[in-house]
């Protein structure tokens, strides 16, 4: 019934667990629907270069056993075909030359925009559907619907953090773990809540425009002090990478590492937030005669190509299948989601802020029950900690400060976002 129709599948952006499951499910369903299926290697990269050699037929044998594997059998790239009219034209022409009538794109918000733009430019000759993928969980879906790949990344991340928690306890030290997730704190909070980390700090907690580096360090130092007062000289703090975005730009410059290589070139590396926090907090504590070992650790890259857990394996089958159902039904120009077991196509326009044209980012909702629960089990200095003088004395003693100075330094932490929710 779809004879003569050719479906292309491509992947853009960073990897996420479940990509192969979507490829597999989409290819099988399309073949069963009478499509010829081709895999397009490395996202839009070869299409922009008008290279037809990287478009190859995909048979059921090619994809039937890949659904439980991490990575992407079609590769991926960050090539953006909307960067110029020529690039866009090259992509459309190459796809047309390859006889592609339908396109399934798997990727983040950039790939979604490309998917839509290609379909528009083809003037109806190519219909496209996008399957959104990101371990950051930051697409504007309903609150209970994760982006695919997030649950696996969180699962693997929670296992790593579990090991670090055991390590911290065994060696009496603190770990400061910086988790990926761009602006959103979903991955950090998801890992921290599931693993039961001592505390997790996400950018969403700070409603103000910018957060100071000192404030972040105060939270960590406060948690270390509180745990000491509770007789525990170890813990694991998780920081969301998004905090870096919220740092004051002036402060950010001071925190960047300047690298000088053999040739005398200077290059600015990304801010190593974990190392900076470690140095600052260890320094503050040492100054007061408190020897606390803090070790920093980044978590992220090792999660993106993990084999999907059953949740994502199942979810991605649904997504791949629904993408084809949507195209077969004559649809085009939408992002596929599955909500409560049902397919819900989301028009691309709904993904963007009408005013700025930028993709909406789903942030952690700090007013949700889910966040409140996470917050309630964290050990951080809260408003409650400053109510009883005896407890303040004990905290101050653990901090090697006088009660007065302790209040001066830390009492403001109790008034911040979510501060009282831990009561």
């Amino acid at each position: 019934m779809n004879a003569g129709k050719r479906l292309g599948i491509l992947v853009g952006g960073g990897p996420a667990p479940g990509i192969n499951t979507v490829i597999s499910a989409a290819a099988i369903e399309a073949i069963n629907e009478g499509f010829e299926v081709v895999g397009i290697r490395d996202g839009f990269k070869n299409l922009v270069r008008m290279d037809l050699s990287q478009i190859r037929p995909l048979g059921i044998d090619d994809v039937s056993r890949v659904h439980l594997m991490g990575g992407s059998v079609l590769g991926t790239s960050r090539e953006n075909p909307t960067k110029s009219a020529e690039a866009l034209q090259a992509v459309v022409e190459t796809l047309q030359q390859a006889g592609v009538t339908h396109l399934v794109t798997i990727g983040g918000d950039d790939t979604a925009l490309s998917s839509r733009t290609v379909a528009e430019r083809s003037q109806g000759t190519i219909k496209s559907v996008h399957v959104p993928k990101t371990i950051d969980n930051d697409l504007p879906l309903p609150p209970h619907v994760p982006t695919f790949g997030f649950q696996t990344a969180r699962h693997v991340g929670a296992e790593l953090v579990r090991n670090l928690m055991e390590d911290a306890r065994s060696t009496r030290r603190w770990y400061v773990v910086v988790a990926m997730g761009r602006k959103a704190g979903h991955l950090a909070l998801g890992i921290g809540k599931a693993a039961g980390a001592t505390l997790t700090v996400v950018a969403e907690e700070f409603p103000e425009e910018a957060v100071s580096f000192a404030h972040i360090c105060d939270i960590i130092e406060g948690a270390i002090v509180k745990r000491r007062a509770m007789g525990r000289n170890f813990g694991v703090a998780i920081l969301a990478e998004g905090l870096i975005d919220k740092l004051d730009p002036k402060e950010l410059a001071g925190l960047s590492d300047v690298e000088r290589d053999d040739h005398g070139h200077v290059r600015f590396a990304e801010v190593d937030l974990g190392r900076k926090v470690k140095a600052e907090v260890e320094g503050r504590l040492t100054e007061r005669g408190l020897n606390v070992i803090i070790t920093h650790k980044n978590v992220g890259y090792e999660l993106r190509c993990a084999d999907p857990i059953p949740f994502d394996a199942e979810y991605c089958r649904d997504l791949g299948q629904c993408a084809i159902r949507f195209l077969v039904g004559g649809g085009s120009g939408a992002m596929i989601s599955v909500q409560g077991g049902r397919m819900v196509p989301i028009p691309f326009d709904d993904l963007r802020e009408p005013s700025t044209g930028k993709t909406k980012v789903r942030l952690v909702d700090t007013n949700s029950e889910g966040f409140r629960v996470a917050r309630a089990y964290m050990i951080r200095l809260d408003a409650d900690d400053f109510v009883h003088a005896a407890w303040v004395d004990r905290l101050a003693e653990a901090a090697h400060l006088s009660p007065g100075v302790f209040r001066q330094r830390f009492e403001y932490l109790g008034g911040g976002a979510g501060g009282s929710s831990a009561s």
Partner: protein
Amino acid sequence: MAIKRIGIIVGGGPAPGTNGVISAVAIEAIRVGMVPIGFTDGFDWLAQRYTDEQHELTIDEVSRIHLDGGVLLGTSRRDITESAESFDNTVAALSKLKIDAVVCIGGDDMVRSAAAIASRTSIRVVQVPKSIDNDIRMPLPMPTLGYETARHAGVGVMKSLMEDAKTTGRWYLGVTIGRPTGHLALGIGKAASATCTIIPEEFPGEVVSLAEIADVVEGSIIKRRAMGKGYGVALLAEGLIDRFSPREIAELQDTDRDAHGNVRVTEIDLGRKVKNEVQTRLEERGIKVTIVDKPIGYELRCAPPIPIDVELSRDLGYAAVIHLHRDGPSALLTIQGGECRPIPFAEVLDLGSGKGLRRAVDTTTESYQVARKYMVRLGPADFRDEAWVGKLAAAGGFDAAGFRTHFARQRG
């Protein structure tokens, strides 16, 4: 003389399987009529003459912990031979608690403390060789307790990075802990089939430079490019840092300044330094390769033990108690071919420095040769065929002569 009270002390970094030893020692000790005492945080409290940080272990407390990562009793790096006071305090505290024998679970650093108690007191000491570094001086092929699990978990991380590198067309530069030897790096790299693994033992000279390491990584990247593969994962043993010259160390150290203006020197970030060096070299010749550095290590030390280590931990714990029960002398305990083989402390200590002896990766073995065979690195064979040299040179942005000069070290 029958042993009545047996102490258990864990030292050094955590390693998978430690809880299995604690469990086996306690259960077997109770079975033969001894009272097992678990000491908290290694020698830390004993060295301060505290006698409260210990408790009698019961079967109920330890019977289900053998599959758990971490250290039930906690651990520390306290070395009681650091001062006469620490040593005397420890002996006094142990005597006060009427401890007649001690099972020390630890690595090459702990040997010093264990051997000191054994040689200078009447307390008998058995050490169980525990380290994810696999570097305690004992016969191959016996691994140190915890190494196999750490390697296993490390391979899991590597598998994801290798898939990620392939999917995104980039290079990862992993750096594994395990100073100063290359066992863990090589074990992970060989099992995961990393594109190349660089360990200190492969360099014959005393000093290794950042440039030499960068040569190997850069060479691998270029060779892979010539083979049509724009991605890969290189693994570095962190121990390479220990071979840098003092001048290079000073140049490579990062300094952070805290709020009080104090300069804090952090360890050399080997991965970042090599990444910057290689990326800059390639960029200068117009070649863009994304390289991402990734330290691997802390997340491995407290992984739940895999069956190899669970079994080894039980064997070692059991053997330690039986050895003492049969009046065996103080020793480092190993299991070889299923049999308990004690090694006298004198054989695992450097008499000059008093430090525990290590075993380095033996690069003359078949096993190392196999690991090397499957790596993609530039070697003398790559410089024989002109056509291939031309292809490599092009992949590296050189002319043939420039390529030969640049990689003079790899030509052998």
